């Protein structure tokens, strides 16, 4: 495809690699792009662990960015040690709210969270568009907010590159994801519902509230992606401030198999694709959109190969995908064979 554009693919890949890992600055740039992807990847993964499909991370990210920007711009005169956590909390809560709504609709009315998270994404983007052209627009021509207060900006951790403190937050989020899911009763409930909602209910876990709150937490993760992007990179809210980090999060969560380290690795990989893709676009004029094609192919190949593996025991449907809950499907239609397994774990 790249060759079709009259550009040598090797040269394009050369730019891609150089842009991703060529020097210190490129590596930093890769990590800068990976930070929001870690959060959105965790967002998809967290919902996935509960048997839910969150494809609305982009919208949750926008709401998180909006809330963070408001706190960052309008709360003045407090030290960074308070300002930054406050702005991050606002971002988390806004994202969580955006996840909670489809979560409650799913839990209470059984409405598919897939369609609702998508609809909420469009609503969030339009809402941010309204806010930056109206209520919180800075004086002047541009549809954007004023710069956030210096006390809210995340410090650079590797000058002169753009790498910022968000990297540490991203790593903390990965750790939190792991601790919550595998170290707390709540995380156990989330995973139990994800594996088999009916069995979880039989074991005394209420699937409804668990699902709703899991989607809220997932939204919160995505909201933090927006927060870090605002406080660490953009410093102000713009209409289209995310180049699709939320959508990429789906690929990150999938490729990372919804595990903490897997998500981290996948986020760095897609961060490299983005950083390299930008350099490639500048260098040889291949549009960054090519990386969507790359992502799609990776998803198809990775996921399809999971299913194509020779299955042990022909009689067991789903034996080839035992590691990750078959989100949504398993939750809605519990397979009989999983009941005993789940019950023994809880006993």
């Amino acid at each position, binding site marked *: 495809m790249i060759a079709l554009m009259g550009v040598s693919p090797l040269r394009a890949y050369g730019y891609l690699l150089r842009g991703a890992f060529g020097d210190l600055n490129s590596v930093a740039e890769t990590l800068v792009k990976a930070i929001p992807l870690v959060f959105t990847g965790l967002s998809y993964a967290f919902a996935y662990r509960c048997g839910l499909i969150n494809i609305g991370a982009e919208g949750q990210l926008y709401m998180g960015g909006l809330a963070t920007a408001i706190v960052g711009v309008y709360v003045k005169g407090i030290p960074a040690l308070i300002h930054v956590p406050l702005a991050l909390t606002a971002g988390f809560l806004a994202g969580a709210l955006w996840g909670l709504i489809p979560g409650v609709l799913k839990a209470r009315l059984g*409405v*598919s969270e897939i369609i609702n998270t998508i*609809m*909420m994404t469009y609503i969030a983007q339009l*809402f941010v568009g309204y806010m930056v052209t109206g209520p919180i627009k800075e004086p002047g021509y541009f549809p954007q907010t004023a710069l956030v207060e210096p006390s809210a900006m995340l410090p650079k951790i590797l000058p002169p590159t753009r790498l910022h403190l968000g990297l540490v937050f991203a790593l903390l989020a990965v750790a939190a994801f792991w601790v919550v899911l595998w170290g707390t009763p709540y995380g156990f409930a989330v995973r139990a519902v994800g594996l088999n909602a009916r069995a979880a209910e039989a074991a005394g876990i209420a699937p409804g509230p668990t699902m709703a709150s899991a989607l809220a937490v997932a939204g919160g993760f995505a909201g933090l992606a927006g927060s870090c992007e605002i406080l660490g990179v953009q410093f102000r809210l713009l209409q289209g401030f995310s180049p699709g980090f939320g959508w990429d999060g789906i690929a990150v969560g999938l490729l990372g198999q919804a595990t903490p380290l897997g998500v981290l690795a996948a986020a760095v990989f897609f961060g490299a694709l983005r950083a390299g893709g930008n350099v490639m676009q500048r260098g040889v004029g291949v549009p960054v959109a090519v990386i969507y094609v790359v992502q799609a192919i990776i998803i198809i190949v990775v996921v399809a190969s999971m299913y194509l593996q020779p299955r042990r025991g*022909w009689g067991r*449907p789903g034996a080839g995908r035992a590691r990750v809950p078959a*989100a949504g*499907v398993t939750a809605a239609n519990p397979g009989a064979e999983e009941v005993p397994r789940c019950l023994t774990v809880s006993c």
Partner: protein
Amino acid sequence: MLDSVVLTTVSDFLQAAVRMASPIFIAAVGLVFTGRSGITNIGAEGTMLMGSLAAVIGAYFLGTPGAGLLVAMLVGLLVGLFFAYLVVSVKADQIVMGMAINLLGLGATTTFFRIVFKISTVPPQVTAFSPWEVPLLSRIPVLGPAFFVQIPVVYLGFVLVGVAYFVLFRTTWGLSVRAVGEHPRAADTVGINVLAVRYACCLVDGLMAGLAGGYLSLGLLRGFTENMVAGRGFIALAAVTFGRWNPLGALAASLLFGAGDALQLRLQAAGFHVPYQFMLMLPYVLTMVALAGLVGKSRPPAATGKPYERASQA
């Protein structure tokens, strides 16, 4: 006098509503088939996008919008075949594969658009469809212009809704489709080829999504812009759910969403002091409200989302 002004306004509004609803219900007809056969296809968005670009490329190089539409349908068919291979033969997760198709659609169309038309400030000029008045019927007051002064693709869409309804509920093959969606094993037992039925439904779905995309770029919007489908593929899926997996229901739901779209444009033009972003939210909010209010009563086919494995429990 005043009456006729009001009537004209209403009639204009309805015409716009049908125009806006068309890409949604055309795609929805395809989604009814996949849905009924037990497949959730969220990849209609990406398929439509590829159809949109294919239609523009086809119309540009072959000269007529009709040819462009055929190219769009062909591309849709190929995407449908690919999707069917992934979810029916490989048995991969339908949601994930649908998402991949969407990403592929977004990336491939943006890239190919630049490959074919280079990067220029002037968008390529293509001949689009123009409206065709149905004799006599278009003279019906109020409803006439809405339903009978549209571009031919819209009529084709209406006909296909009827055909889809007939096929699904009045033919043996339609019964097979519904059986496969409800209880694939039982269908298999009575000699229905489950995999073939699902393949066929995916192909129909792809074809319709391609057609809807073609209508979008050659009828409604005249030209291709990046990510121009803008959620219509997902709204079509919502219309199918809202319309209870029935082509007529999906058509009604699509018309409702189209009316929301048209209303938003009208209110904006009329200078209502509601920021336009809130108007643009209308179809999305409407979709959520519709699903929350009615989905409790509408039940998806029982085998939805589950791949069918012939060799089974001992």
